[in-house]
């Protein structure tokens, strides 16, 4: 569906749709029969160029951000402030020898990174990156996204098993168990959004949030159930992409490198790329579901292009990922799984109930109070129960005689 845009002036409207105009202008050079296919191809090329470019930038920002958090500089030798570091990393990955273990299953070993990168790229097809800027406007776009996420787990397992290495296999099993557990949480926290917006199509969800009461937007994160859902989505997203504090599958201190131990050179670069792209796409989905997608935070800021807001929000999410990585220690496998099944999942189910309550109570201040009270009380109760009997007192020392 094409969203019409009443802008304050036509300049901001043109800037907002500049990529659409660019694509249409380029496609106009081709004969009419080829134009639809060519438009799709151009869109795909744009996605394939933009997101790996963002990935390169993110690797250097992550290293510099983590460095600053840890009271040190990040890389600062290659280029101004180290910004050309990804070029050096890319050259290194391309020129390293590609080692395949002799007893490894060569075909599966080769296919695993390909499957990962392909399925992760497919997930970008349904994200609305700006007004009218979604590659495929599917009615079940959200379901497609989760289907691609599920296929990612298979590639993790393929990588771990085909390496014929017990550390890889162990890492792969842990990774798959973790990803399956948190997939349930991810899905259920998104279902709340689907319930309220009434559609599985991502552009429709963004359109439902693109309204303003006065100055403030109708983003779902500004509602009690939306905030709870967003927090649980964020936890599940961190676990799905194997980021700290849930990065035990690739924990260097425990498992060498987990399921990508036996990968070197470009295949490892593909795994790295796949992980970061998965981070981008899951942040993009979180932005679309809870943070209003490409809509501006205040109604008077709508003159700034929509794609700027979308990518800005995605980069803010990436910054929060990096922040969490620098702050929290790694969770142990059983702590991870306990957390998912015994804390987050019941809370997600409660959130669904609260969302339904929100919908059926109708407009007014009562639903705000009731929903907030239920969620806060449940959180406090579960927090008290889980913290009971866990005294973190003063450290005591026992010395040898």
């Amino acid at each position, binding site marked *: 569906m094409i969203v019409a845009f009443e802008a304050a002036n036509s300049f901001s409207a043109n800037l907002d749709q500049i990529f659409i105009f660019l694509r249409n202008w380029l496609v106009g050079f081709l004969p009419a029969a080829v134009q639809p296919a060519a438009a799709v191809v151009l869109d795909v090329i744009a996605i394939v160029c933009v997101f790996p470019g963002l990935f390169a930038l993110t690797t250097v920002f992550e290293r510099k951000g983590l460095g*600053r958090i840890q*009271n040190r500089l990040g890389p600062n030798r290659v280029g101004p402030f180290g910004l050309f570091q990804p070029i050096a990393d890319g050259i290194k990955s391309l020129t390293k020898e590609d080692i395949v273990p002799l007893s490894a299953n060569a075909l599966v070993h080769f296919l695993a990174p390909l499957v990962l990168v392909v399925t992760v790229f497919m997930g970008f097809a349904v994200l609305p990156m700006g007004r009218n800027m979604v590659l495929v406007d599917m009615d079940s776009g959200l379901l497609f996204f989760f289907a691609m996420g599920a296929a990612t787990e298979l590639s993790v397992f393929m990588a771990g098993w085909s390496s014929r290495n017990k550390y890889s296999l162990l890492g792969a099993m842990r990774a798959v168990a973790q990803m399956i557990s948190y997939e349930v949480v991810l899905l259920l926290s998104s279902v709340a959004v689907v319930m309220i917006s009434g559609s599985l199509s991502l552009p429709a969800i963004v359109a439902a949030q693109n309204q303003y009461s006065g100055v403030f937007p109708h983003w779902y994160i500004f509602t009690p159930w939306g905030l709870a859902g967003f927090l649980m989505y964020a936890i599940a997203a961190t676990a799905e992409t194997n980021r700290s504090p849930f990065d035990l599958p690739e924990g260097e201190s425990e498992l060498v490198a987990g399921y990508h131990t036996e990968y070197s050179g470009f295949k490892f670069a593909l795994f790295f790329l796949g992980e970061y792209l998965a981070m981008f796409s899951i942040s993009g989905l979180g932005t679309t579901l809870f943070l209003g997608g490409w809509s501006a935070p205040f109604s008077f800021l709508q003159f700034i292009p929509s794609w700027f807001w979308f990518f800005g929000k995605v980069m803010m999410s990436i910054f929060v990922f990096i922040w969490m990585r620098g*702050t929290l220690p790694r969770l142990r496998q059983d702590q991870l799984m306990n957390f998912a099944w015994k804390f987050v999942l019941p809370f997600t189910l409660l959130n669904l109930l609260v969302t339904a309550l929100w919908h059926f109570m109708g407009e007014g201040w009562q639903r705000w109070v009731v929903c907030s009270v239920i969620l806060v009380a449940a959180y406090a109760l579960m927090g008290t129960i889980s913290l009971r009997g866990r005294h973190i007192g003063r450290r005591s020392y026992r010395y040898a005689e």
Partner: protein
Amino acid sequence: MLGDGILKGMAETARNFFGSYVSKDRLTTVEYPEERIPTAENARVFPFLVYDGADWEAGLRCVACQICEKECPPKCIYIEKSADKKPDYVGKPQFYPARFDIDISVCMSCQICVEVCPFEAIKMDTQFELATDDRFAGLLEDREKLAKSNEYYHSIHPTEAAEVDARLAEEKAKVEARAKAAAQAAAAKASAPASASAPGAAKPSAPPAKNEGGS
């Protein structure tokens, strides 16, 4: 409340992140080699030979006594005594080292050679950026490379160098006093036979001379 630890941790890391741009103690990185931390005064790396004055051969304090060669634990010092002698800082003729090689790839910076040297001739340097791609000859320092002036010694270890200089000056003063006293005595002896018939005249003249020499 569950989760407050995480929030406190995030606040601390945020403080670190933003603080690293404004305050020095939140970013303790020293960007070597553009910046360097100044070394402490008693830092030590490899030994060097001290010389007084401007000419390194004439002013070299080392008298090739070979004590440091014998005491060095990894035996990294190689000394060849000279055949002739040259005057040292008090004027006494001493041997000097015709060859004095230290293999700094063997040296373990224990400072024993410095501690046993009776002539304050060998001291520890603070230069560590000595990497070279010549594995053998590049790390074998000979007499010329090792000889560094007393002014340089003052610049790297001021307190120590001042103490050494004071001690050496004291020694020199003592030697000079003894020499003067000996000269006085010799002069007295020379004038004594001349006035042997008048011992009473020599005696009164001797004590005042001795007194002068003693002060």
